[in-house]
């Protein structure tokens, strides 16, 4: 009788310990998922911020180099890709497209000293460069959060909890190394 009671107590302790730890882990996962979502919202914010700079940029360039239609169309198209994008990888693609268009623009701008000297244009360039860096920063933080989350839900024993509650691995915001080069702005 004494021995049975003792084992019952051990069993209860074990159940409580495991239950407590499971709840703890589940809550950690929820917290981490929220962190990933928050980081993604920041990435999206910055991408939108840049998309919002585009009409102003196009207008300014048009004032000096209206017949550079090809570059201007490219930039406008990149903007509509932004608006269509839904998943991180689609956003990454639109982002790369825009960066290509922008570097083409900077090549063209070299032929228009008056445009380069334009106050509005130089301010836009700073805003674009700053936004570029914001995107890079928030993307880095998002990817770090995703890495942490993905690693955790694949690890034993958290993977069991993740499986039960349906936590799935998150998508990275990835871009080809080649596209990652930010166009140089020189004055």
């Amino acid at each position, binding site marked *: 009788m004494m021995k049975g009671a003792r084992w019952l107590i051990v069993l209860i302790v074990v159940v409580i310990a495991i239950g407590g730890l499971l709840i703890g882990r589940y809550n950690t996962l929820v917290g981490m998922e929220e962190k990933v979502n928050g980081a993604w919202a920041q990435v999206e914010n910055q991408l939108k911020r840049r998309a919002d700079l585009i009409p102003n940029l196009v207008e300014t360039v048009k004032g000096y180099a209206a017949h550079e239609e090809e570059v201007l169309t490219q930039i406008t198209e990149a903007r509509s890709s932004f608006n269509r994008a839904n998943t991180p990888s689609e956003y990454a693609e639109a982002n790369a497209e825009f960066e290509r268009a922008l570097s083409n623009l900077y090549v063209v701008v070299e032929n228009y000293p008056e445009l380069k000297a334009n106050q509005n244009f130089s301010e836009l360039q700073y805003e674009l460069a700053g936004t570029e*860096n914001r995107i890079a920063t928030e993307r880095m933080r998002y990817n770090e959060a995703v890495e942490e989350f993905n690693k955790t839900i694949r690890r034993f024993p958290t993977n069991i909890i993740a499986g039960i509650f349906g936590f799935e691995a998150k998508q990275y915001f990835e871009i080809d190394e080649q596209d990652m080069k930010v166009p140089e702005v020189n004055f």
Partner: protein
Amino acid sequence: MKRTCILLLFLVVVLNSTISYAADINIPEPSFYFYVYDEANLLDNEAEEYIIKTNEELNKKTGAQIVVVSLNSLDGEDIRLVAVKLFEKWGIGSREYDNGLLMLVAPNEREIWIEVGYGLEGPLPDSKVGRIIEDSIIPYFQEDNYQDGIISGFNEIIREVEEEYGITLDRENINEDLYYIGEYEGYTGFFQGIKGILIIIGIIVFLIIDFRLFNGFLTYSIFLRGRGYGGSYRGSSSRRSRGGGGRSGGGGAGGKW
């Protein structure tokens, strides 16, 4: 019973195993006074004192922090990434308002980046920061006059921050010579000259004693300490400052010269 305990212990350890993070780039610890970390030794004591005192007052009134950092080397990293990481580690500005700002100067790479905390992006948009770098900092840097460039940029930033918060910091009372940059240059008084000679004599005496008695141990240890000591300033204030936990998101502007 014993086995059960071991099993329990094992479960606890496994369930709580933490996630390991990838090694990061080398970011120094903040200096004692926090507001200036002058590894490349671009500023003299007066300039450092000016920046520290102005910040102490600014921080008391608004929680904002304007930190100036110079680094000897970026170790091949992008200056913008170094700035973001340093900002993150030091937590510049208050946690509540994220109103910090970091001016990072790498004289050997000839690059500058000003990283603006989330909360100061309103009064200091990228284009304004870019303009300050272009007009108030780079012209001095091009003449290798780092101190005046940093102070002039610092003053422009302070002016915008003052306007944002509707305050006036009594900078003039702290050091008029430094506030009026243009007039500062010619002023090298008799005592400053003497001070310089005394410092040099002091260093020579130190070296002789060190190498005679300690085989140069003190000298080597000073040089081998390398990163981790960024402030030569040891002024009247003994108050230690810390970051308030502010964050930034890559906003700001940079320049080369």
